[in-house]
C-alpha cells in the first residue's frame, strides 16, 4: 500500500521496494532509499521529538545534516541503541526500529512540557542563575535532575559489540563535498592523473542537485549528471570515491578526519563489516565544496511540527516523492522558496499563500509562481504559526503592522536565505570575511593549502559554481604535480535563480516582543533570549553564545548562528563583523567514540609486556599485578592461602632458606665507550672513575634541581662498559634523560647508550641458600665470598648459556641476580627452581619483594620519594660524591630550600599497637588534639605487615624526621587516631650481617 503522502510519479525511489519500520512501537512502511524522515513524512508523521528545555513538540526542520529537531534513538538490540540520530540522515532499512527521545510518558503528551508554561524561569542564563546555591545541591539534586529531565536519548547498557575500522590515506587533491561543485572539481583534478579522494556525507552524490529541479548539465538533469560523473570518477584508478563519509575535522597541514558510515544503513550488517571507518587523510591540496545551508525565518511558534525549510520540502518531494502537506504556506525573504512552491504546486499540492517579506521582488520564479495561480503577498510577514502538535495555520500581517489574517495550512515552508558552510574552512584556521552586500561570512584569508568553491565560497548560481570549481580542481591538481587535463568542463545548460535573504528576527519577533521565535531549535533559544543576554551585559558573541547556549547543541548552530549574531548585533547597535562570528570547531557533525577509538580497546587498548617466566608463574597459580605495561607476579598463593598468608610464607622462607624472584622488568641500560666512566660521573651523584671492573655500586640519579630522579645498581663489566639498572617504571625516561645529556650537553663524550631491558631476563635468587642454589649450574665463576664479594658482577655461564651474574641484594640477605639472554630466561628459571626445591626455596612475587626491602629500609623511588626528595632527605647522603665538581643536580642540591632545616626526611615508624598496619599515604601530626585543619608534618610512604618482625612496619616522610627518633607521633584516621613511634629505617639485621649469611 502506498503511504498517504507519497506522490506517484514524483521522486527517484522505486515504489516496489518497500521496507517496514517502527517508530515509537507503531509500524509503518517506507521505501528503500528513504531516510527515516522521508519515510515518516510519507506516512504523514511530523511530530517526532520534544525539545531540550521546554519539551515543545518538534518535527523536521531540514532534510539533511543540519537537522536540529528530529533526533531519535535507533535500536538494533540491547547493545546497539544509538541516541541522537538525526532522522533526516538515517537511511531506512527493513526492520528499522526508532524511538522518540526526551519525552515522558509519551510523545504526544509530555509532562515536561510544563517547562514551556514556566518558561520565564528558563530564560537565557538560567543554568547560571538558578542552580548556584547551595553548592552541595548541585551534586545531589540539580545535576541528577537536570540530566534526567534533559535526556537526549539513553546510552545502551552493554558494551558496543561492533567494530570500527581505520584507514590512513594520502592524496594530491581531497575534495570535500559531492555536489555540483565537488564533482566538477574532482573531475578536473582526476584527469590530471593525481590521486584524488572525493567524499560526501550523503548516500548518493549530488548535493543540492537532489532538489534543484531546474538544474541541467551536459544535456541531462542535474542529479542524473551527478550520478554519471561519479560513476566515471569511480572507474578511474587514481580516484577514491567515498559516500556516506563526513569530513568532520580539518587539522594542521591539510590533515582531514572523515568518518565513513559503513553499515548503519544495512538491515543485517554482519560481523565482517565494520560499523564505521575513520579516515585520516593527508592531502597536498584540499578543495572545500561544502555548499550552503538554508536558514529558517525567526517568527513566533516557528518550531511547530510541519514548519520546515523550503529546500527540505523540495528534497522530500523531488528526491523521495513525498509531499510534506496538502495545503502548504510559504514564508520567505528570498527567491528560493518560490521554487519549492512551484514544485509542490506542480505535484498537486495546494499552496495556500506565499508570504514574502520583500516589497516588490521580481524574477522568473516569481513570474512562474504567479502563472501557476499561486497567491503571492509581498511586504507581509507571518507573525505566528498556529497549532500545537502540528502547524494548523499561519497568521499574516503587513510587515509594518496592520490587519491580521489567519490562513489555514498544514505545513509552512521557510527560507530566510542561505548561509555558506564555512565550517571546515574555519577549522583550517582560515579567517572568514563579512560581505556587507550579501550579508554573508565567506572565506577570506587562507591558512592552509586549500580552496573553497561554490556555495560555501558565497558563489551564487550553478554556472558560476561549476566554472569556479572546475578551475579550482585543475589548479589544485597542477600545484600538486598533475599534468594538464584535456576534457572540457561540464556545460551548465540551466540553473536556478538566486537572491539574498535576511538575517535576524522577522517582524513580530523583534525588539520588545516576548514571543517564542526560535533561533536555535535544539537548545530552545529564542530571539528574546539573545536580546536578554545583551541587556544583561554580554557584549561579545562568544559571551552571548555561552549565556544563551545558542549554537552550542549537537547541531553546532548550523541554522542558528547567523540569526543569533544578527539579533545580538542589532541589539548592540553594532555592525555584524564587529560583534564577530563564533569559532567553528570539530566535529562538523557528531562522531561516535567508537570511530575515534577504533581497534584500540579491550586487549588492544594498551600493550601488555610479559617477562620470560610469565607462563611458568601462571602455571604455578601466580596472581599478577600491573606495573606500567608489565604483568608482574604479585604473589604465589598455595591452595587455601589468601594474599596475606602467601606473602607471610614467602617472606619468612626467603630469609630462612631462599627465594626466586623475576626481576626482569627492571630497566637496563648499557653505557659503553672510552668516556663511559666520565659520563656516569656526570649523570649519577656517585663517583665511578675508581669503581673497579667487576664491582657494583648503588647509584642515584638526580634532576638538575637536586631531587632524586631514579636509582639502581650499576655493575662495571669493563673499564669502558657499565651495566646500569633503573627502576621498572623509570626505564624509558632514564634512557631519555641520558640521551638528552649525551646528545645536547655532553656531546664531546664518546659514549653509546643501549637499552637492554628486554634483552636480559633477570632472576633474583635471595636468601642464605642462594649461593648453594646457583653454584651447581654455574661455570667459570668463582662464587666464594673472597672471589665474589657482595656488590660484584661476573661474566660466565649458567646452564651453558652466557650470564652476567650480579651479587647484590634487595632483601638484605645474601643474594644474586642472574642475568641471562631473555630467550633462555624460562629454561634457566626452571633449572634454578629445581635446585631451589632441593633446599625448600620459594618463588616470590612483587609484594614479598616490597616487604623484604622495607624491612631493610631500602627505598623505592616513586613510592618513598615523590620528586621533591633529595638524597639527604632519603638518608642517602653517603651516595653523593663529596669531592665531585660536577654532576647533574650538583647545583640544585645547594639551593637554600634544599639545605634548610626542617625538611621532610625518611624515617621508620612503628605503631604502638604492633598489629595495626598503617595506610600508605596517611597523614602524620605531632598533636592529635589540635583543631581541624591540623598541621600535617608528613605522611606514610610504605607500610606492611612484617611476618619476620612479628609486627607492622612503615616508612614515612616526616618534617625534621631524623631529629625525632623515639618521639611519639599520631596518624589521625576516620576510625580513630593511631599512635606511632619514630624509628630508624632498618627493621631487620641492622648491622647488615646477613648479606654474607
Amino acid at each position: 500500500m502506498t503511504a498517504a503522502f507519497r506522490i506517484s510519479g514524483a521522486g527517484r525511489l522505486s515504489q516496489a521496494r518497500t521496507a517496514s519500520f517502527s517508530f515509537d512501537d507503531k509500524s509503518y512502511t517506507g521505501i528503500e532509499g528513504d531516510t527515516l524522515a522521508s519515510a515518516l513524512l510519507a506516512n504523514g508523521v511530523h511530530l517526532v521529538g520534544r525539545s531540550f528545555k521546554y519539551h515543545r513538540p518538534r518535527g523536521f526542520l531540514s532534510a539533511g545534516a543540519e537537522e536540529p529537531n528530529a533526533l531519535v534513538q535507533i535500536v538494533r538490540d540491547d547493545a546497539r541503541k544509538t541516541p541522537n540520530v538525526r532522522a533526516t540522515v538515517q537511511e531506512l532499512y527493513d526492520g528499522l526500529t526508532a524511538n522518540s527521545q526526551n519525552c515522558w510518558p509519551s510523545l504526544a503528551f509530555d509532562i515536561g512540557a510544563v517547562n514551556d508554561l514556566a518558561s520565564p524561569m528558563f530564560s537565557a542564563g538560567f543554568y547560571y542563575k538558578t542552580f548556584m546555591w547551595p553548592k552541595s545541591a548541585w551534586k545531589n539534586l540539580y545535576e541528577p535532575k537536570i540530566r534526567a529531565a534533559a535526556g537526549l536519548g539513553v546510552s545502551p547498557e552493554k558494551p558496543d559489540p561492533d567494530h570500527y575500522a581505520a584507514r590512513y590515506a594520502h592524496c594530491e587533491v581531497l575534495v570535500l563535498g559531492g555536489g555540483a561543485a565537488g564533482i566538477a572539481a574532482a573531475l578536473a583534478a582526476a584527469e590530471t592523473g593525481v590521486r584524488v579522494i572525493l567524499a560526501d556525507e550523503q548516500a548518493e552524490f549530488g548535493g543540492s542537485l537532489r532538489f534543484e529541479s531546474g538544474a541541467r548539465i551536459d544535456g541531462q538533469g542535474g542529479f542524473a549528471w551527478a550520478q554519471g560523473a561519479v560513476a566515471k570518477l569511480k572507474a578511474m584508478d587514481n580516484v577514491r570515491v567515498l559516500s556516506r563519509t563526513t569530513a568532520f575535522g580539518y587539522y594542521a597541514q591539510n590533515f582531514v578526519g572523515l568518518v565513513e558510515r559503513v553499515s548503519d544503513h544495512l538491515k543485517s550488517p554482519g560481523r565482517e563489516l565494520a560499523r564505521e571507518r575513520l579516515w585520516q587523510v593527508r592531502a597536498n591540496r584540499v578543495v572545500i565544496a561544502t555548499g550552503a545551508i538554508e536558514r529558517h525565518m525567526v517568527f513566533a511558534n516557528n518550531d511547530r511540527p510541519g514548519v520546515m525549510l523550503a529546500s527540505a520540502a523540495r528534497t522530500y518531494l523531488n528526491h523521495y516523492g513525498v509531499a510534506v502537506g496538502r495545503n502548504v504556506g510559504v514564508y520567505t525573504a528570498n527567491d528560493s522558496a518560490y521554487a519549492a512552491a512551484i514544485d509542490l504546486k506542480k505535484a498537486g499540492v495546494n499552496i495556500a499563500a506565499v508570504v514574502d517579506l520583500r516589497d516588490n521582488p521580481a524574477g522568473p520564479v516569481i513570474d512562474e509562481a504567479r502563472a501557476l495561480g499561486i497567491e503571492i503577498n509581498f511586504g507581509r510577514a507571518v507573525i505566528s504559526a498556529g497549532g500545537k502538535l502540528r502547524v494548523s495555520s499561519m497568521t499574516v500581517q503587513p510587515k509594518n503592522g496592520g490587519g491580521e489574517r489567519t490562513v489555514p495550512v498544514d505545513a509552512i515552508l521557510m527560507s530566510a536565505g542561505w548561509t555558506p558552510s564555512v565550517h571546515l574552512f574555519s577549522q583550517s584556521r582560515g579567517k572568514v570575511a563579512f560581505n556587507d552586500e550579501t550579508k554573508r561570512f565567506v572565506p577570506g584569508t587562507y591558512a592552509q593549502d586549500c580552496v573553497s568553491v561554490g556555495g560555501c565560497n558565497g558563489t551564487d548560481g550553478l554556472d558560476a559554481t561549476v566554472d569556479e570549481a572546475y578551475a579550482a580542481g585543475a589548479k589544485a591538481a597542477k600545484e600538486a604535480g598533475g599534468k594538464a587535463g584535456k576534457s572540457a568542463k561540464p556545460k551548465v545548460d540551466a540553473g536556478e535563480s538566486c537572491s539574498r535573504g535576511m538575517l535576524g528576527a522577522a517582524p513580530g519577533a523583534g525588539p520588545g516582543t516576548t514571543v517564542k521565535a526560535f533561533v536555535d531549535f535544539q537548545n530552545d533559544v529564542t530571539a528574546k533570549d539573545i536580546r536578554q543576554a545583551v541587556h544583561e551585559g554580554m557584549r561579545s558573541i562568544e559571551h552571548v553564545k555561552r549565556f544563551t547556549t545558542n549554537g552550542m547543541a549537537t547541531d553546532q548552530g548550523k541554522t542558528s548562528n547567523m540569526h543569533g549574531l544578527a539579533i545580538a548585533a542589532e541589539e548592540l547597535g553594532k555592525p555584524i563583523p564587529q560583534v564577530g562570528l563564533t569559532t567553528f570547531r570539530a566535529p562538523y557533525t557528531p562522531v561516535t567514540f567508537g570511530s575515534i577509538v577504533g581497534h584500540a580497546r579491550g586487549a588492544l587498548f594498551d600493550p601488555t609486556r610479559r617477562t620470560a617466566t610469565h607462563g611458568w608463574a601462571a602455571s604455578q597459580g601466580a596472581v599478577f599485578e600491573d606495573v606500567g605495561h608489565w604483568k608482574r607476579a604479585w604473589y604465589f598463593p598455595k591452595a587455601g592461602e589468601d594474599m596475606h598468608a602467601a606473602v607471610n610464607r614467602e617472606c619468612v622462607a626467603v630469609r630462612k632458606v631462599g627465594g626466586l624472584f623475576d626481576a626482569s622488568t627492571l630497566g637496563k641500560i648499557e653505557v659503553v665507550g672510552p668516556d663511559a666512566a666520565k659520563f656516569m660521573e656526570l649523570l649519577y651523584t656517585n663517583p665511578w672513575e675508581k669503581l673497579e671492573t667487576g664491582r657494583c655500586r648503588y647509584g642515584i640519579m638526580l634532576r638538575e634541581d637536586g631531587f632524586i630522579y631514579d636509582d639502581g645498581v650499576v655493575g662495571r663489566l669493563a673499564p669502558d662498559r657499565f651495566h646500569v639498572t633503573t627502576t621498572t617504571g623509570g626505564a624509558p625516561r632514564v634512557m631519555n634523560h641520558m640521551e638528552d645529556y649525551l646528545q645536547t650537553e655532553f656531546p664531546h663524550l664518546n659514549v653509546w647508550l643501549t637499552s637492554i631491558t628486554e634483552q636480559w631476563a633477570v632472576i633474583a635468587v635471595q636468601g642464605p641458600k642462594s649461593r648453594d642454589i646457583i653454584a651447581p649450574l654455574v661455570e667459570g665463576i668463582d662464587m666464594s665470598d673472597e672471589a665474589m664479594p657482595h656488590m660484584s658482577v661476573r661474566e660466565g655461564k649458567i646452564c651453558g648459556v652466557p650470564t652476567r651474574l650480579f651479587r647484590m641484594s634487595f632483601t638484605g640477605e645474601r643474594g644474586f641476580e642472574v642475568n641471562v639472554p631473555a630467550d633462555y630466561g624460562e629454561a634457566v628459571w626452571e633449572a634454578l627452581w629445581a635446585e631451589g626445591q632441593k633446599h625448600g626455596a620459594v618463588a616470590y612475587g612483587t609484594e614479598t619483594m616490597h616487604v623484604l626491602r622495607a624491612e631493610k629500609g631500602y627505598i623505592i623511588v616513586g613510592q618513598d620519594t615523590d620528586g621533591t626528595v633529595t638524597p639527604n632527605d632519603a638518608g642517602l647522603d653517603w651516595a653523593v660524591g663529596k669531592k665531585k665538581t660536577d654532576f647533574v643536580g650538583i647545583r640544585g642540591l645547594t639551593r637554600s630550600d634544599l639545605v634548610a632545616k626542617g625538611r621532610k626526611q625518611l624515617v621508620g615508624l612503628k605503631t604502638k599497637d604492633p598489629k595495626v598496619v598503617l595506610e600508605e599515604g596517611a597523614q602524620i601530626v605531632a598533636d592529635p588534639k589540635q583543631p581541624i585543619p591540623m598541621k600535617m608534618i608528613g605522611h606514610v610512604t610504605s607500610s606492611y605487615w612484617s611476618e619476620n618482625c612479628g609486627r607492622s612496619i612503615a616508612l614515612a616522610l616526616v618534617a625534621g624526621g631524623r631529629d625525632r627518633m623515639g618521639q611519639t607521633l599520631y596518624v589521625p584516621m576516620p576510625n580513630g587516631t593511631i599512635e606511632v613511634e619514630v624509628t630508624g629505617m632498618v627493621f631487620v639485621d641492622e648491622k647488615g650481617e646477613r648479606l654474607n649469611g
Partner: protein
Amino acid sequence: MLLIRCPYCEEERPELEFRNAGEAHIARPTNIAAESDDDFEKFFFIRANPKGVIYERWRHIHGCARFFNAVRDTVTDKFIMTYKAGEPKPAKLPGAAK
C-alpha cells in the same frame, strides 16, 4: 597531526614520532656548581613561553632518536624550520619580513 621535518632523517614525519623537549638554546653552564642563585634560577626555572615564535627542542624518539631544534609559531602551531642540535639560533627565519 603536524608534520615535522627531522633535520637528521631529512624528511617530514608525523608528529606521533616526536616528543617535545622544552625550550632550546639554554646551555648548561660549564661550571654549574659555581652559579649564583640568580643565574641558576634563570638557567633552570625561567622559560620564555612566548606568544609567537618559539625556539624549542624536539626528539625524533620513534625514529632516529636524535634531539634537534625547531622554530615554531605558538599561535598557528606552524613549524617555521628545524635544525640540528648544536647549531646556532638562525639569524633569519624563512618567510620572515625582509
